[in-house]
């Protein structure tokens, strides 16, 4: 592959392309699930290398491998032509590779200086040399043109400045390969401009930058080369000039829609849910919104798909509707024609709403408890009249759900923590089916689930809609969304940007709307 005209400086200086890091044949499995298979990535000096792909394409896993977070993988990594295998982020940093994750790895209670030198302090006689650290921190920040007080504690700084601290930290470690995972997700426009200036400086200094983003305008602004991943495989690497937005989206999507989605024709029933200008404020940032003025309708027996990339607010829409954001939500909600004010999960459950969250381990399951305990948890008030539990009854309902969902376990007393991902997800589904919901809110119901269980979940959703249950479905797998959803609503940065009826939706159209590409056609 030849160097392109988009990197003149690099070539001018070195005369030839210099490869800083090369990943070859990277394969990574989590249990039975293969998330990366035979992926190659080459980072050159003086380039911004965009890593693109849908959610779940394997971008994060790839950079975690490069950054030493996942030390257990197949394939090889070379840095400066030498084979390496970073076993920890610190080891990767010693090789000059630093990953700046979305969740920043700063210690909030420490100062900017202390954070910059965290892990590799400047010392004198074994003690931290504060004066030297402060001087060096100032020097680094000055060189980058960053205006930052080195003695401020990080927690007092706005997110943008925290991000700059993280970059300064990377430079203090003499990083030559800097990986940024959606660095602009919390930044406003001037801050983004500043970041881009900084990136240009880093390029000139001969650093190689791997940049993950979902935003088209950012790709257009900074990209030199682009690598696209899809379903854990490499689609290809190309110079940015050779990959205009349309082509890029095609690379990201380009997939045949399989036959494995059983979805019967439905005759939607009565209106189950209506949202009018529904908004969810951001609890962390007063005045900001996670979801803004979204209106939608959903009828009994219908599946309304919600598409959106990271930061679209789709999950917050479901959480807000379920009452998990408390009374802060704004706008009109009608459930079965009657006004409904989300305020608390308990109240929502009694109104027949169920929410399957996108992280079953963090917010779906109680891992130390048994299958039976988890299955009955949300319906305990009904299952234990007068407060006293009925173990026989709990066993009966748990076994019934287990049979229906084809749950594979040693017994209903098995701890859910020891189940496979697919079976864990079935327990979450069983918990919500036990509450006899009328409106199911599903956030990534097939995430981290093996293919067999996925197919079973698809069949289940189809069967549930036949019973008249209405489903709001978020999934980042576009083929799944296109096949299962009767209509698709697309969110971008908290706002609805398009709605497609079944048949008119295409992967390209949905992705375009989700990436904030205008013009969008509102149907």
């Amino acid at each position: 592959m030849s160097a392109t005209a988009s990197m003149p400086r690099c070539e001018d200086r070195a005369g030839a392309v210099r490869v800083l890091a090369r990943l070859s044949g990277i394969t990574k499995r989590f249990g039975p699930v293969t998330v990366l298979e035979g992926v190659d990535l080459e980072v050159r000096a003086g380039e911004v290398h965009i890593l693109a792909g849908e959610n779940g394409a394997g971008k994060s896993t790839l950079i975690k491998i490069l950054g030493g977070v996942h030390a257990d993988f197949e394939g090889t990594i070379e840095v400066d032509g030498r084979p390496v295998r970073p076993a920890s982020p610190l080891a990767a940093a010693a090789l000059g590779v630093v990953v700046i994750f979305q969740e920043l790895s700063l210690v909030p209670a420490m100062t900017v200086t202390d954070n910059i030198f965290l892990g590799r302090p400047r010392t004198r006689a074994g003690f931290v040399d504060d004066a030297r650290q402060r001087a060096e921190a100032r020097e680094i920040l000055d060189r980058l043109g960053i205006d930052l007080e080195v003695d401020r504690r990080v927690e007092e700084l706005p997110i943008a400045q925290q991000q700059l601290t993280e970059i300064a930290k990377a430079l203090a470690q003499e990083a030559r390969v800097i990986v940024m995972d959606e660095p602009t997700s919390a930044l406003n426009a001037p801050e983004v401009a500043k970041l881009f200036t900084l990136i240009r400086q880093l390029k000139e200094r001969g650093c190689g930058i791997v940049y993950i983003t979902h935003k088209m305008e950012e790709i257009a602004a900074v990209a030199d080369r682009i690598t696209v991943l899809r379903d854990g495989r490499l689609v290809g690497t190309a110079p940015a000039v050779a990959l205009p937005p349309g082509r890029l989206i095609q690379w990201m999507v380009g997939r045949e829609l399989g036959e494995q989605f059983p979805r019967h024709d439905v005759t939607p029933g009565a209106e189950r849910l209506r949202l009018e200008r529904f908004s969810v404020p951001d609890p962390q940032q007063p005045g900001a919104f996670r979801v803004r003025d979204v209106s939608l309708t959903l009828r009994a027996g219908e599946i309304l798909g919600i598409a959106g990339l990271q930061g679209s607010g789709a999950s917050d829409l479901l959480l807000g509707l379920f009452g998990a954001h408390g009374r802060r939500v704004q706008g009109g909600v009608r459930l079965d024609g009657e006004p409904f004010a989300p305020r608390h999960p308990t109240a929502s459950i009694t109104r027949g709403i169920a929410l399957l969250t996108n992280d079953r381990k963090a917010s779906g399951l109680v891992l130390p408890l048994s299958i039976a305990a988890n299955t009955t948890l949300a319906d305990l008030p009904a299952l234990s009249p007068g407060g006293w539990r009925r173990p026989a009854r709990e066993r009966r309902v748990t076994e019934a759900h287990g049979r229906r969902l084809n749950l594979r376990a040693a017994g209903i007393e098995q701890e859910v923590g020891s189940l496979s991902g697919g079976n864990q997800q079935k327990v979450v589904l069983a918990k919500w089916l036990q509450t006899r919901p009328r409106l199911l809110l599903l956030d990534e119901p097939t995430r981290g689930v093996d293919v067999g269980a996925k197919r079973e979940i698809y069949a289940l959703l189809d069967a549930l809609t036949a019973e008249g249950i209405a489903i709001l479905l978020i999934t980042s797998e576009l083929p799944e969304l296109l096949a299962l959803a009767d209509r698709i609503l697309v969110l971008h940065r908290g706002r609805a940007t398009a709605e497609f009826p079944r048949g008119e939706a295409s992967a390209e159209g949905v992705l375009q709307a989700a990436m904030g590409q205008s013009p969008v056609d509102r149907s």
Partner: protein
Amino acid sequence: MNPVSTHAAHGWRRLRGEPASRALLALLLVLALGCVFHSDGAFFKAGTHRDALRQASVYGILACGMTLVIISGGIDLAVGSVLALAAVLFSLTTIHWGWSPWLAIPFVLTVGAACGLASGGVAAGWRIQPFIATLAMMVFARGLAKTVSGGMKVSTAVQQADGAYRYVDVPGVFRGIDSRVLGGNLSVVTLILAVCVAVGWVLLARHRWGRQLYAIGGNEEAARLSGVPVTRTKLFAYVASGLFAAVAGLCQAAQEQQGDPEAGIGYELTAIAIVVMGGTSLMGGRGGMGLTLLGMLTIGYLEKILSLNAVPEASRLMLTGVIIVLAVLAQRRRRG
């Protein structure tokens, strides 16, 4: 659902992996120790076991409440102070003010529950770390006990208006609590402990509230999103802990025939040790009242065997420390 594997070895390994089996094993080891170092047959006398159980009872009652709080993912450091407050109030009302036990006991229990309500309200309602919230109550209740008692032991020596002391009879209720039943083979305080364990067990294992408590300790966010009333459920655990601490205070006062505002110092740590010894996880979500009973018996008998063999207290403390670490090490879950 597929049937449970019936392979014998598999079943045995499973059983061995259960916390209950491991806690039982620890108890059996301690009892075996007693059989070897029986101190001229003293270990085989019924009176020895009665005393071992009696001496462990107050700690055991505290551990019942502690178990509930720990399963919810919290901790209650205030139980020792609440015990002292209860002992002082019980002695004051019955000995000095001549209250009927039918009035004094509900009053003391209410105060104990109120202490739990306060520290639980701070911990669960205001979301202050349970360690801090109950530490504050630990200090506060100790101060209250000293205020109420005037900083002195509340005993049967009652000061008259002229400043002279007059000794009054020990109230009947004290004698009753400190007596024995079943032909002198069982102390009443041990019976009270048994009731506390039974109540705690029923709540944890058979009541909706217990299941919700486990769920909160195991994953608070999942519990909240499953409609569990998190604040109320946690609050009740602290109230129960305060109540059990007050019961322990009644027993303590009856056994000492006085209310000592300095009583129960460090008892909260023994109660935590008992709970941990049983195998209940300090992370919350795992454990149970049966385990706490086993932990209490293990620690109680260990103490008894060491004192039977005239091991000096200094060595006893050091040995107990070592054994707690060993027991918890043995119970560590192996992660596959």
